[in-house]
Each structure stands twice: as structure tokens, then as C-alpha cells.
């Protein structure tokens, strides 16, 4: 099982917002036996999808120098379950960012209806605390982002496609 909970980036504006798509599939491991007779995507994995979009948005903004982790979910509301065949549209907007962390809000729509909304706070791991060095080996994160089509759509504030950083 890979830990990528967004299938594809559909939008990415540096320092502003990111959007992506998650398809819910009947053959996903996580659905197997999760709620027998009524499979649905665990809502915590919807949080993860939006956290991944937000975390990448924040990491890119700081030029991939920060070790970004999810620190808090202020509030997460779930209005309806995401079931096999659903295509979830995630949209995450950056609220604020400073030297130690960032906050963002995210929404999830399906068939034109809002089914979830969340408030996220990210922290940047301090040097020497918890782990030394980067969380990813060279090429790992870049490889995952390529699979998610990030570089197809990621632009800076002026609308110019962003360069694929060597740091990835």
C-alpha cells in the first residue's frame, strides 16, 4: 500500500492553493472489510489527502527546506460518506505561514456537493528534534509528486510553471 491519498493534482498555485482528485475504488485495501456491506473511505484518509495537498503547498513555498508534518486538525466535518465510484475533489487554501508552521483550510466536494471541510495546522520539525536530516531520500518526494502530476500544473504567483527543484 502506497501512502498517496491524492490521485492527481489539478491545480497548484505557489503560496496560495492546491486542488486535486481522489478516486474511491472498490478494490482499495482500506475498504476491504472496513464496514462490511457498506464500504466507504475512512474519513481520516480524506483528511490525509487534503493534508498532503496542504503539506506540499507549504513545503514548496519554503523551497523544500522545511520538514513539514501535520501537527493539528482544528476541526474536521464530514457531511456524507465517500463510497466506491466517487470522485472526490479536494481544494486546500493556505491561510497563514511563518517560520515555525502554517495553517490551511480544505474542502472536499463530490458530485457538486460539499462532503467534508477541515482546518489544518502544519509544524516544521526543528533541526535535531525527532530525526536528523530530511524525511525523504533524494528523488523520493520528487518521484511521488511526478506520479501525482504536480509538475504538469504547478505555477508560481505569476502563472509561470515552476521548476522541478534539485532538492527533490
Amino acid at each position: 500500500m502506497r501512502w498517496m491519498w491524492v490521485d492527481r493534482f489539478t491545480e497548484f498555485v505557489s503560496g496560495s492553493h492546491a486542488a486535486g482528485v481522489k478516486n474511491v475504488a472498490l478494490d482499495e485495501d482500506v475498504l476491504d472489510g472496513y464496514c462490511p456491506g457498506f464500504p466507504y473511505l475512512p474519513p481520516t484518509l480524506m483528511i490525509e489527502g487534503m493534508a498532503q495537498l496542504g503539506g506540499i503547498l507549504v513545503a514548496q513555498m519554503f523551497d523544500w527546506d522545511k520538514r513539514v508534518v501535520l501537527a493539528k486538525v482544528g476541526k474536521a466535518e464530514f457531511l456524507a460518506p465517500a463510497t466506491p465510484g466517487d470522485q472526490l475533489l479536494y481544494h486546500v487554501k493556505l491561510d497563514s505561514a511563518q517560520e515555525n508552521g502554517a495553517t490551511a483550510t480544505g474542502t472536499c466536494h463530490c458530485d457538486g456537493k460539499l462532503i467534508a471541510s477541515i482546518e489544518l495546522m502544519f509544524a516544521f520539525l526543528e533541526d535535531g528534534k525527532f530525526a536528523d536530516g530530511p524525511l525523504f531520500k533524494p528523488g523520493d518526494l520528487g518521484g511521488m509528486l511526478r506520479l501525482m502530476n504536480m509538475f504538469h500544473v504547478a505555477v508560481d504567483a505569476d502563472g509561470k510553471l515552476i521548476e522541478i527543484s534539485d532538492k527533490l
Partner: protein
Amino acid sequence: MRYSQLDRLISLEPGKRLVAERTLRADEDYLQDHFPNFPVMPGVMMLEALLQAAMWMIHTGNDFQSPLVMLREAKSVKFGDFLAPGETLQITAETIKEEENIVTVKAFAEKNGKTTVSARLVMEKCSTGQPARLGTDAIVQGHIRKKFAELFGTFELPA
């Protein structure tokens, strides 16, 4: 239940309080992505453990009469520490308030006495909402009791 986050139950007061354990195994394959240089349980997976603890606590509390026990709201979810392979979480879910079919739960997980995650969860006991003629609710209800026994079989529900 492939995504079950509870290895075993430690104690249970149906509808009131549930304590369970989850040990992170080094061979859980998503660890390769999270993170390659620092394999740790994803925060949301720890939250899922809290959520499942709350869910089973509520299900056992009303004798599995509700087809679904769904998360409506998660509040003040805080991640305090990481869980590394080989480490064990002790997960607690306690009912704080119950109003009709809405149950508010305080849930947290600890590692060696230190909290790694805590949250307030608002859960709803509800139907699948599928067309009545399909009888989905009854089918799901039938499965859930069996699923509990499969997962925690050796654990006896208090009389």
C-alpha cells in the same frame, strides 16, 4: 478488516469506555512512503485508531443495533509525538455526552504514558440511507456483530 487499527482490547465498558492497543510493525508497507528516512505511523492513522475505538465502544453500547456509527466531526485533534516501528499505543475512548443518536467522545492514545494524539470526536449512530427495498441496513447490522467477534473474538463482552 484490513485497515483495522486495534490489535486487541484491554478493557471495555460498552457505550462508556474502551481501551485497546496497537503496535506498529516494521513491515507495514506504507512506511516506505511515510517517511523513507523516518518511518513513523501517519498522524491520521493514529486518529483512525481513536475513531475505531470510539466506534466499537458505541456499537457494543447499543448491542450493534445501529447499522453505522459514523464520524461527523473531529475537533482539537493534536499530534504530540511520533510512533516508531515496534512501539505500542494504548488507545482510550470515553463517552462524554450522548444526545439521541449523537455521541461525543473524548479519545486519546499514549505511548509509555505520554500522549501521542488526542481528539474530541462527534459520532452519529445512523442508517446507511440506502433505498429501503434493498434492506442494506439489516445486512450491515448482521455483519458488524460478526466483525467485532472476528477482530476481538477472545474478548468477552461484560454481561
